[in-house]
């Protein structure tokens, strides 16, 4: 199942569904990289609120995604990691180091706004 990607101003927002397969996640990664270029978006939000497990594959793919997006000059924020999932990741040893994570979509958008502002001034 394809993950829906919405354009909101300068950002792309992808909201992941619960029954996400490996193929879906890889497809999302590629779709976002494509659309970032087309839409000239400055930021990407991946909303993982619906995911009840984030294992090593998902973590690796999200890291790759953020890396590829950065190569295109945009920033990625992962939002909505559930508390139990966050703890499982920490316990397992999976870090999203170097990638911004926020509580939810609202925080993610606020972060991107701040970040864009800072880039303009600086």
């Amino acid at each position: 199942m394809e993950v829906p990607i919405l354009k909101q101003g300068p950002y792309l927002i992808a909201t992941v569904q619960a029954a996400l397969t490996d193929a879906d996640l890889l497809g999302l990664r590629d779709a976002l990289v494509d659309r970032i270029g087309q839409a000239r978006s400055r930021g990407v939000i991946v909303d993982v609120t619906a995911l009840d497990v984030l294992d090593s594959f998902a973590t690796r793919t999200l890291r790759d995604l953020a890396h590829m997006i950065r190569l295109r000059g945009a920033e990625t924020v992962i939002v909505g990691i559930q508390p139990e999932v966050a703890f499982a990741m920490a316990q397992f040893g999976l870090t999203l180091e170097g990638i911004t994570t926020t509580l939810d979509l609202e925080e993610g958008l606020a972060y991107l706004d701040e970040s864009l502002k800072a880039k303009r001034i600086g």
Partner: protein
Amino acid sequence: MPDDRTVLRTEADIVVARQIGRAMAVQLGFSPGDATLIATAISELARNVVQYARQGEVLFTTVSIGGQQGISVTVTDEGPGIDDVAAALQDGFSTSGRLGLGLPGVRRLMDELAIDSKPGHGTTVKVKKWKR
């Protein structure tokens, strides 16, 4: 509670396996946090099978010793087997970069991990978690 088993062939089976594990954990009375730890561990082990062994099976059982209850998950496959089990259990590959088989991580998520594997003879990984 009856045992349950499921086959591991495609990546979709990984999701099925961890959902069965989570459901059983919840039914046994594990906390949501622990149920997530169990589901994550199963996801890793199942993924190893699908990735390296092409086909395998997961067996879910409940265990009880003394007054304590727990869940036991056994993941078996007829794949290539692990060359160096000791190395696979060491934390050398964790965090960024290659994650290897993620076995040290799985052991941290669960209470017990036992592994039986020989090159050419497949792999069996058995993990247990006790209800707190």
